[in-house]
């Protein structure tokens, strides 16, 4: 039981390391959001599952925390992406721009 917990903790830490590396190495803001959201969501899952293996009586609290992270992390990153688009920090080699078709505007500054 404890060995499974250690394995999940190490996997979670590895994903956090990869997320941090991605934030450092990625070229523009959208790529950084993608690295910082997906990797840390999976990393937090792994760490929480490892804690659940180590201490099985905390399982209900851990389920609530997982639900919280599932809802809050993508919503936060989507809000950051929207704000980035509005404040004109988009890369120049953009292939497709769906928000412009829907009438969204950049801030004029």
């Amino acid at each position: 039981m404890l060995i499974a917990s250690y394995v999940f903790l190490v996997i979670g830490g590895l994903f956090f390391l990869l997320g941090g590396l991605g934030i450092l190495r990625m070229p523009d803001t959208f790529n950084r959001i993608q690295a910082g959201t997906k990797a840390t969501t999976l990393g937090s899952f792994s760490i929480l599952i490892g804690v659940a293996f180590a201490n099985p009586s905390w399982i209900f609290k851990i389920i609530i925390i997982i639900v919280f992270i599932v809802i809050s992390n993508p919503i936060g990153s989507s809000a950051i992406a929207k704000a980035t688009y509005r404040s004109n920090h988009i890369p120049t080699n953009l292939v497709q721009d769906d928000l412009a078709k829907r009438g969204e505007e950049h801030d004029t500054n």
Partner: protein
Amino acid sequence: MKNLIAFVLSVALGVLMVLSLTNNDWFAQFGYVDLADRVSQSYIDKDVTGNPGEIIFGITSNPENGAANIVTSIVVDYRSFDTLGEVTVLFISALGVALLLNSQDKNKRLALNFKPNFMLRVGSRALFAIILMTGVYVILHGHLTPGGGFPGGTMIASSILLLYLADDQFRTKVKGFKLLEGVAGSFYVIIGLLGLLLATYFLQNFLPTGTVGDLLSAGVIPIVYILIGLKVGSEIAGIIDNFLTEEEVSL
């Protein structure tokens, strides 16, 4: 030149503080405090008046103070009068903010220059439920686990802040908050007067304290912490509401 004087003054103050810290009998060396010299040891042993002996979690029943969290037992029982004064300070500062920012009657909500999209609105409703539930849990278990009325009340206020941010049209019933705040403060004082009436002094714990570690234990401590949580939450939510309104500009 001004900055140089400021630098010299602040460095002098820092040197004075460091000098007064070293070789001082009143401040023990960092990490080597002897608690037996201090008054805190009697709070941990729960023997300010009686002497119950060693306290065991889940076994000892009816000690002088039944809270398993010793910090809570200090905040809400041994030094409860102090806490009443601090809640009053928070109330007065909330009153000052309301007086400064909300003087006119015709106020409107601060209009953000973008509309929150569908996902943000719906998701923040779900998050609101989880944060509110966590706040209520933290308040109710304040005498068993870390937390209590102060952080729990702030969590309730932050859930309301989330609704304010994610929904354009959201505006709470501010009068309800004001009423809740007044009722909670009044009940705090009433519980203190009941302690004066049924026991000997103001804010004394007049209910039986139960077994250490049960949810229903520690006498009046959970009741008082629920009241503090409601008061702190409604006050900070009122402050946020005042900051998010602006006066109607007549152009």
